[in-house]
């Protein structure tokens, strides 16, 4: 599917979605609460079939957080980037997609560990890299560690 076709298709799915076509792939900007139904559609619709979630990134935009999902279809060979915006920075919550793409389980744990995004209904949401008693989320922009951090 080309960018344009994807765009029309996705507008039908999520009317509130906005698009950004600057990069190589189509970027879809949505709100966090639209994510779960959209993810299901992306995975299951016959002409979408995004079966390969290859990257999950949580981004701290200082006033809000967003989670970026890079999706590819191994059958139809198209890529889409979904950016889910989480407005509440202090208590960021988004639905997990680990039951749709199993790979998300570890990726979401990583995002929780380093960025503090809570994935609702995640089967096993614990710290992944850091110790269980770690305070704070290191990848956030306001995280301070006077000992270990280098500033350019």
């Amino acid at each position, binding site marked *: 599917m080309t960018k344009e076709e994807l765009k029309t298709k996705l507008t039908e799915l999520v009317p509130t979605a906005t698009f950004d076509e600057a*990069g190589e792939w189509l970027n879809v900007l949505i709100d966090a609460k639209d994510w779960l139904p959209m993810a299901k559609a992306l995975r299951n619709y016959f002409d979408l079939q995004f*079966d390969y979630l290859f990257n999950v990134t949580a981004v701290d935009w200082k006033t809000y957080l967003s989670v970026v999902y890079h999706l590819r279809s191994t059958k139809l060979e198209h890529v889409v980037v979904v950016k889910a915006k989480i407005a509440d920075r202090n208590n960021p919550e988004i639905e997990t997609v680990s039951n749709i793409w199993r*790979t998300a389980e570890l990726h979401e744990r990583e995002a929780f560990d380093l960025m503090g995004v809570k994935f609702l209904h995640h089967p096993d949401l614990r710290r992944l890299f850091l110790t269980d008693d770690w305070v704070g989320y290191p990848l956030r922009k306001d995280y301070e560690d006077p000992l270990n951090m280098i500033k350019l």
Partner: protein
Amino acid sequence: MIEEVGTTTEGDLIINVGPQHPSTHGVLHLVITLNGETVKKVEPHLGYIHRSIEKMCESLSYRQFIYVTSRMDYLSSHINNQGCALVVEKGLQIEVPERGKVIRVLMAELTRIASHLLWWGAMGMDIGAFTPFFHAFREREAINDIMEETCGARLTMNYVVPGGVMADIHPNFQKKVNEFIKLLKSKIDEYYILLTGNIILQERLKGVGVISAEDAINFGCSGPVVRACGVKSDIRKIAPYDGYEKVKFDEVFETAGDSFARYMVRMNEIRQSLSIVEQLIDNIPEGEFQAKTKAVLKLPKGEFYSRVETARGEFGVYIISEGGLTPYRIKFRSPGFSNLAALHHMVKGSKIADMVATMGTLDLVIPDIDR
């Protein structure tokens, strides 16, 4: 971080494999639940070598951050560097000269061969054959010598810069690589006699750690793991970079999806990489090896993603730039991280020895997983 010791209520043994264990190839910690010899559950505990490279990169310039990635997947450090350089080039729209591209590809394929050779030796050790390790290292040593001559380092070469490569190839490079091609071609058949054809190895790997194509995709596996299920996944074919579209090579497939299929995919990839090196080594175009770039690189505001195929699978670099000197947010998609996620699914219900064999064929590099 010692936890979960002893037995479960059903009387199953809980064993901590690692962080120091001969078959985890690094500081991987697996908590496994055993019923007798049968593995019921495998749970990875990560973070023993987590350096938060993504955070480090946020305070490094676009020239500097490339070399931190050598320390992620140290066995395909050149390919990691290449991925990072590609994303910077994409952002600044730098056109890499042909010579630079060809040198990069040559180095990348040599790195892939070296990585696969090391994997072959280490996998042999995992299933109890010690000798292959030394045989593989003999040939890997030749690659390292070539690298040392041209790049100045043997493992973490840091040879790539945005716009090309750091220095021109050594005058001996072509001669040595040609010698190496001849050497390895004679040795690959020897590997077959030593390990691949061995009935014990085949018995140990066939039907072990099976994963279906759907599951492999669902778990986000990439590289030889998913190609062993017959899924097209080679980034060099899907989205060619640095002139891979001009060289002839086959994407290697197997269909069984078991450990032996993964083994054969890697063994055949060595041959394919060798053929790429063979095609390019005598045809390195003349000209600049590096494009002219500004001393200080500043990516425009925006988001950039590039993918490369490392020896372990798909490596992705995702940069969000705010137009400053340093990336605003950087994310590395490491192949080992996703491949590890499938481990439990693959080994559940098999024996401990099968778990070790499966881990061997997943080719995990722990710094790549932990980052």
